[in-house]
């Protein structure tokens, strides 16, 4: 049959009992239809869907030549398949049967019989006009991939996986947590039979683990789903758990992990270690390391020193381990423990509570403790033995760090130092009252013991040249050079008479004192500048017995000097004057006698981000001084870079005199010369210079190993110090605002009057007790502190902190989504006092308390550790409440009765229930209700108004009062209890919306995933091949969840058994002759079914993916796309039929 055949249409109007006939005059509809063009047969019948009704159609096709059928009945969702099948049985192409829906959108929604009849007539007329143009269509079939994806490893997911695997099919179970088991694993007993949850759940978990055809993918999430029923492609991200499958679950790691954080499995009522297993029977039993990014302190540190790690070890009193951990990363641990400007402390999350942890002082403590208690540490043998030699010029922090890293790697390193003392600025610029000489030597000695050759008194540019170093001159056979000569030349004030006797730069002043060179200090000293060098010079001058005034041209707020050092300077009697700048050195007989100064005021912000100081006109004044120390800044000299013949160097320099290098690799314009530290940065801090040394070592190693340096990135990610506590999941509990404040430990110092008389160290260091309690302030905000303690004890070597997330693509035929629920946040119910009063707990907290592996070992205990004398259980918290969720959470009534039973069993407490309606709807539930009533639980029918703390002055212990109206006796009641249990509502997961998008699931107004039909298809969804089960579909108990899981499994197995899926022919086709190649349709297709044929320059529809939604048909500007079954002609004909006047208005 073709469309050119004359249409012979049969119209069948269904009464549907009274459903249609009560409102629509079906006979009138039949009569009108009978008069329409092409209609050869029109009938009405009481139930068209009955066999007798279907036979009417069949007979007319077979005997009366009907070749098009219109059934005016219910929604096509109900019976379109029925009538199409009937037509097909009679030899008619099923797509020549069309439904006019005169029930749902006509008879059911209207009351006026005349109008409803008219509407029905129009609908039938439209259908008749349309069906006349219908063409036969052929459905196609696709194979079904028998592998199934189950999303969510709770009881629903486990049960479905077992059922599907029983039939011999492969199943992937993707679970977000580190273990399967879901919520049920956290319960103690299950109602109404009071089975132990673990006893009935864990055998299923073990079974799922053991089956070869069930693949558990834990700690994982589905990121994307493509494809269609029978043939889905799923992208899964398995998050790194940092422990490999070699883990034997021995638990040795837990005993050494120094980190404890609140345990979400126990509703944060107990703590767990960073490396952990959720609960004893967890499946898989592999441990997991909890890491929320890197600790911010570690990220902020230029050398990525593992601060949280050693702080956590110190907190536990494991001082030797702490020192060892520090040494892993830090070549100058003693020095850094004293003078580091500690960017780690700026990044410390503890700042959000009160003040940062005193990380620098704790490092100093650990190192000093090591010196006093441990044998001299022996450097480990290098990892490799390379023949290449590397020259490091300058023995400051940059050079030493580079030498340390390269020596560790296995290179032969020689350090050249122009002074007789090693340490660069550490030796010449750092006053000994901050960092004593033996401390510097101690760090350098360790590097020497690593085999680094140190040559003092040899100066680049004087004793040898850069050419000699780089070109392998005899005695200088180096493969690479690291230039770290520092920035040791003080910058002059650039004012008249600066060359007068008694004027010295800050750096020269400190160098002279440190190296015991002649240096005069007059009784009145002016220090010009506000940086650390200025303050060092000022405090040194105090020790020389002078009266010291620091002149700074901005204010304290803009001073770059550190807080600690500023405080020490003030304590030692250094005077500070702000907004003042010298304009001329006043001189008598070539000797300084004072300064002429001007007063400044702050103006616009300048390039440094600080307000620019502007001189106030006419404010010039004279000040008397005997010595002037100019400590405004330093820059590197460039003499060393000159070649002997005086030829220009091939190195390039910035206008500040620093060496120009690639900022990532620190490689200079000469390929085997690298530079770093102050020589590149300008005057910076010790740890910044060390960071450069580390970066250079990494680049030099790469360079020498023949690897390209293009796109070099250090293994050290750029610091992101603001990735703090707030962004980390543990911020949820406890809130950092709720963390008890503990002030930062203050560093004990020598008394001021004594310390200004000598150069001995000012800071005294923490005692063991001080150090431990200070270290305990660490919040473990990144959870794992990377201390590697677990690594050291793990026998199977299963720890892998470098593990990364794995992305897997799974090909599956069908998907079951069982992602569960979350509980209502009870703090939102303010009158119940949750979060304010300690003994108001949620049902989940109470559940964990009852569990033998829970925080109280199965005992019901109040916050003070005592057993409650009375317990009030409050139903419907966040459920059946207009303010929160209107729905009933279904499980709370029975869970509350279970709580009552267990409380009566395990305590002597009186137990009260406050309920709105007792919903005991399941099998055995009513019996359970009466059992608990007989056990002596008191039930009060009424919603609780508020829970308030009682008054304690009546001689009684403090307790809670639950206030509620008892609606059965019509009285308001106030029940005193020690503990209130809030039965929190079950809510959709927080990311239900996103999950819905991933799996193409709709959600009902309450936010849960929407089933295809509430009664007849409760586990199917509007996306073919995707099923839902359990609480992600709506609140339900375990029996219903398991029933849904098994129903889903049955549906999945049915399709696997059939082996193929019918692909509806209602889909788009492109007329290639008309397609202009504009690609408009490509981006619009919600099923990504349209691709572009670059050769033919036309859009191509993938028939398997197309759902026939028609979006592209409507959008195509060239009308090149038609929807089979929905052609423009058909739709226009239907509209014409609908809008044509009918006779009986």
């Amino acid at each position, binding site marked *: 049959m073709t469309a050119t055949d004359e249409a012979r249409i049969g119209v069948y109007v269904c009464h549907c009992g009274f459903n249609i006939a009560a409102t629509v005059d079906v006979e009138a509809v039949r009569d009108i239809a009978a008069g329409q063009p092409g209609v050869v047969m029109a009938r009405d019948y009481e139930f068209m869907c009955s066999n007798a009704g279907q036979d009417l159609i069949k007979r007319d096709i077979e005997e009366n030549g009907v070749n098009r059928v219109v059934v005016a009945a219910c929604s096509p969702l109900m019976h379109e398949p029925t009538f199409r099948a009937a037509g097909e049985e009679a030899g008619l192409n099923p797509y020549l049967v069309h439904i006019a829906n005169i029930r749902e959108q006509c008879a059911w929604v209207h009351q006026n019989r005349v109008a409803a009849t008219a509407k029905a007539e129009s609908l039938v007329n439209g259908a008749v006009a349309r069906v006349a143009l219908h063409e036969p269509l052929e459905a196609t079939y696709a194979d079904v991939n028998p592998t199934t994806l189950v999303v969510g490893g709770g009881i629903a997911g486990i049960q479905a996986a077992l059922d599907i695997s029983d039939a011999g099919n492969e199943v992937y179970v993707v679970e977000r947590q580190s273990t399967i088991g879901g919520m049920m694993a956290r319960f103690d007993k299950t109602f109404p039979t009071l089975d132990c949850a673990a006893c009935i759940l864990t055998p299923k978990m073990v079974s799922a683990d053991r089956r070869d055809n069930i693949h558990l993918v834990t700690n994982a999430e589905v990121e994307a789903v493509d494809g269609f029923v029978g043939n889905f492609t799923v992208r899964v991200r398995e998050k790194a758990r940092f422990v490999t499958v070699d883990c034997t679950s021995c638990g040795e790691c837990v005993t050494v992990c120094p980190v404890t954080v609140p345990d979400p499995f126990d509703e944060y009522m107990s703590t767990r270690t960073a490396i952990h297993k959720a609960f004893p029977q967890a499946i898989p039993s592999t441990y997991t390391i909890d890491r929320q990014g890197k600790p911010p302190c570690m990220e902020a540190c230029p050398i990525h020193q593992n601060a949280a790690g050693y702080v956590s070890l110190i907190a536990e009193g494991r001082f030797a381990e702490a020192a060892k951990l520090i040494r892993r990363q830090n070549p100058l641990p003693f020095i850094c423990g004293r003078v580091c400007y500690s960017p780690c402390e700026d990044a410390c999350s503890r700042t959000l509570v009160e003040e940062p942890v005193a990380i620098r002082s704790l490092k100093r403590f650990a190192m000093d403790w090591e010196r006093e208690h441990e044998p001299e540490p022996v450097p480990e043998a290098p990892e490799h033995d390379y023949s290449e030699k590397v020259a490091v010029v300058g023995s400051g922090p940059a050079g030493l760090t580079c030498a340390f890293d390269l020596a560790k790697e296995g290179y032969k390193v020689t350090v050249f130092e122009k002074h007789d003392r090693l340490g660069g600025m550490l030796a010449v610029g750092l006053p000994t009252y901050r960092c004593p000489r033996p401390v510097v030597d101690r760090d350098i000695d360790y590097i020497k013991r690593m085999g680094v050759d140190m040559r003092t008194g040899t100066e680049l540019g004087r004793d040898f040249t850069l050419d000699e170093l780089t070109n392998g001159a005899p005695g200088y056979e180096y493969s690479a050079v690291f230039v770290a000569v520092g920035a040791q030349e003080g910058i002059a004030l650039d004012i008249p008479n600066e060359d007068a006797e008694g004027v010295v730069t800050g750096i020269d002043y400190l160098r002279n004192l440190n190296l015991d060179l002649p240096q005069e200090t007059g009784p009145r000293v002016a220090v010009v500048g506000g940086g650390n060098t200025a303050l060092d010079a000022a405090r040194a001058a105090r020790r020389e017995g002078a009266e010291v005034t620091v002149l700074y041209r901005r204010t304290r707020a803009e001073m770059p000097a550190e807080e600690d050092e500023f405080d020490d300077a003030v304590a030692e009697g250094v005077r500070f004057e702000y907004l003042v700048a010298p304009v001329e050195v006043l001189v008598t007989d070539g000797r300084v006698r004072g300064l002429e100064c001007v007063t400044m005021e702050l103006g616009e912000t300048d390039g440094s981000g600080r307000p620019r100081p502007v001189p106030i006109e006419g404010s010039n004044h004279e000040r008397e001084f005997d010595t002037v120390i100019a400590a405004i800044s330093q820059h590197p000299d460039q003499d060393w870079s000159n070649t002997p013949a005086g030829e220009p160097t091939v190195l390039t320099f910035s206008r500040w005199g620093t060496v120009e290098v690639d900022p990532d690799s620190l490689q200079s314009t000469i390929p085997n010369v690298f530079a770093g530290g102050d020589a590149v940065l300008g005057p910076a801090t010790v740890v910044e210079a060390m960071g450069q040394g580390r970066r250079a070592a990494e680049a030099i190693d790469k360079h020498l190993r023949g690897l390209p340096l293009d796109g070099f990135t250090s293994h050290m990610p750029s610091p992101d110090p603001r990735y703090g506590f707030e962004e980390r999941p543990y911020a949820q509990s406890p809130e950092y605002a709720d963390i008890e404040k503990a002030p930062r430990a203050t560093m004990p110092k020598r008394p001021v009057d004594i310390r200004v008389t000598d150069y001995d160290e000012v800071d005294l260091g923490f005692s063991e007790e001080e150090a431990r309690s200070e270290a305990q302030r660490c919040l473990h905000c990144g959870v794992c502190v990377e201390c590697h303690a677990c690594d050291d004890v793990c026998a199977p070597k299963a720890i892998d902190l470098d593990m990364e997330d794995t992305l897997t693509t799974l090909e599956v035929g069908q998907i079951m989504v069982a992602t569960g629920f979350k509980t209502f946040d009870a703090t939102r119910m*303010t*009158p119940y*006092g949750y979060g304010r009063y300690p003994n108001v707990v949620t049902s989940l907290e109470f559940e964990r308390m009852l569990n033998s592996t829970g925080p109280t070992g199965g005992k019901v205990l109040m916050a003070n550790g005592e057993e409650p004398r009375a317990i009030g259980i409050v139903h419907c918290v966040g459920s059946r409440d207009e303010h929160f969720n209107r729905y009933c959470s279904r499980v709370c009534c029975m869970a509350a009765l279970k709580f009552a039973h267990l409380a009566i069993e395990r305590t002597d407490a009186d137990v009260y229930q406050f309920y709105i309606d007792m919903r005991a709807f399941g099998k055995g539930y009513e019996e359970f209700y009466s059992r608990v009533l007989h056990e002596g639980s008191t039930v009060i029918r009424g919603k609780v108004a*508020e829970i*308030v*703390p009682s*008054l*304690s*002055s009546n001689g009684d212990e403090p307790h809670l009062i639950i206030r509620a109206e008892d609606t059965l006796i019509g009285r308001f009641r106030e029940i005193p209890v020690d503990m209130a249990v809030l039965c929190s509502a079950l809510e959709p997961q927080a990311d239900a919306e996103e999950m819905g998008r991933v799996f193409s699931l709709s959600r009902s107004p309450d936010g849960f995933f929407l089933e295809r039909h509430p009664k007849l298809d409760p586990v199917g969804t509007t996306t073919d091949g995707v099923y839902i089960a359990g609480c992600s579909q709506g609140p339900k108990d375990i029996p219903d969840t398991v029933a849904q899981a098994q129903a889903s499994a049955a549906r999945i197995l049915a399709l696997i058994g059939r082996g193929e899926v019918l692909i509806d022919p209602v889909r788009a086709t492109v007329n290639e002759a008309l397609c202009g190649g504009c690609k408009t349709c490509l981006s619009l297709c919600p099923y990504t079914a349209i691709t572009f044929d670059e050769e033919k320059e036309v859009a191509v529809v993938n028939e398997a993916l197309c759902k026939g939604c028609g979006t592209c048909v409507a959008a195509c500007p060239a009308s090149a796309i038609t929807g089979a079954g929905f052609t423009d002609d058909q739709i226009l004909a239907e509209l014409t039929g609908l809008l044509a006047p009918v006779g009986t208005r």
Partner: protein
Amino acid sequence: MTYTYYPGCSLHATGVAYDKSTKAVFEKLGVGLQELEDWNCCGATSYTSVKKTVAYAISARNLALAEKTGHDVIAPCSACFYVLNKTKTRMTEQPELREQVNASLAEAGLEAKMTVPVRKPLEVLINDIGLDTIASLQTHSISDFRPACYYGCQIVRPYGAIDEDPENPVSMERLFEALGAECVDYPPKVRCCGGMLIATFEEVATQLCEDLVDWAVERGANCIVTVCPLCQANLDLLNLSGNGTRTKIPILYFTQLIGLALGSSPEEVGLEHGLVPVNVEAPRLVAEAGTAPATARGGAA
């Protein structure tokens, strides 16, 4: 900064201490408070049940007058605050009502455009002036006061004057803690004082007030601080009943306590209008705190 001050009938009668202390506090803070000229009754709750349109017209007349001043309205009385805001809301939501009301106002040459915000002094102090500013202007210590902060019902609902949890507002506590007074935990802070039931069903209102006072007394409060003249009157009246069996406790306006902290005298904040003497040491200069105590004067006893 200037506000239009709408005292309402209470503040010129039973709540005269609220009137005095509000003015004193705003003066100390250097914030202008200009009483609305020719204001009339807010329409209160009673007239609404007699004839709604007339009640709204009475109320809207105040709004129309206030709109002309160009300043936000401060209505210390919770009932005035509630009624004026209700009028605004209803007239905004119901154009017909607005037409009717404005037709009658037009006869007096007025029109209510519903543009002027009507606010509570507590909210203005916290949001516009700020705790830091108030604390920085403190001259006298009020650390001997242990207030129970009582908000009552109309300040939190339905037109929440302060943007916080209506079941557990904490702005008064924050305010007094910033001024160095330790507040007691006071769970019934938003319960009803009985309101006008004191006139119609006295025993019901009395029971509610007794509960409120008992909570405060048993938690160690030495005063109850209110934001509403009716709450204050109902609770203070209880101090006269009970034939001496009940513990007496001063019922203050929150502005009285702030006024003392900012250096107003007990008379300037109308302390003598209370039925019970304030039995704490007189606020001393902050700098002198710790010197010899003196007893605060004021109170009728």
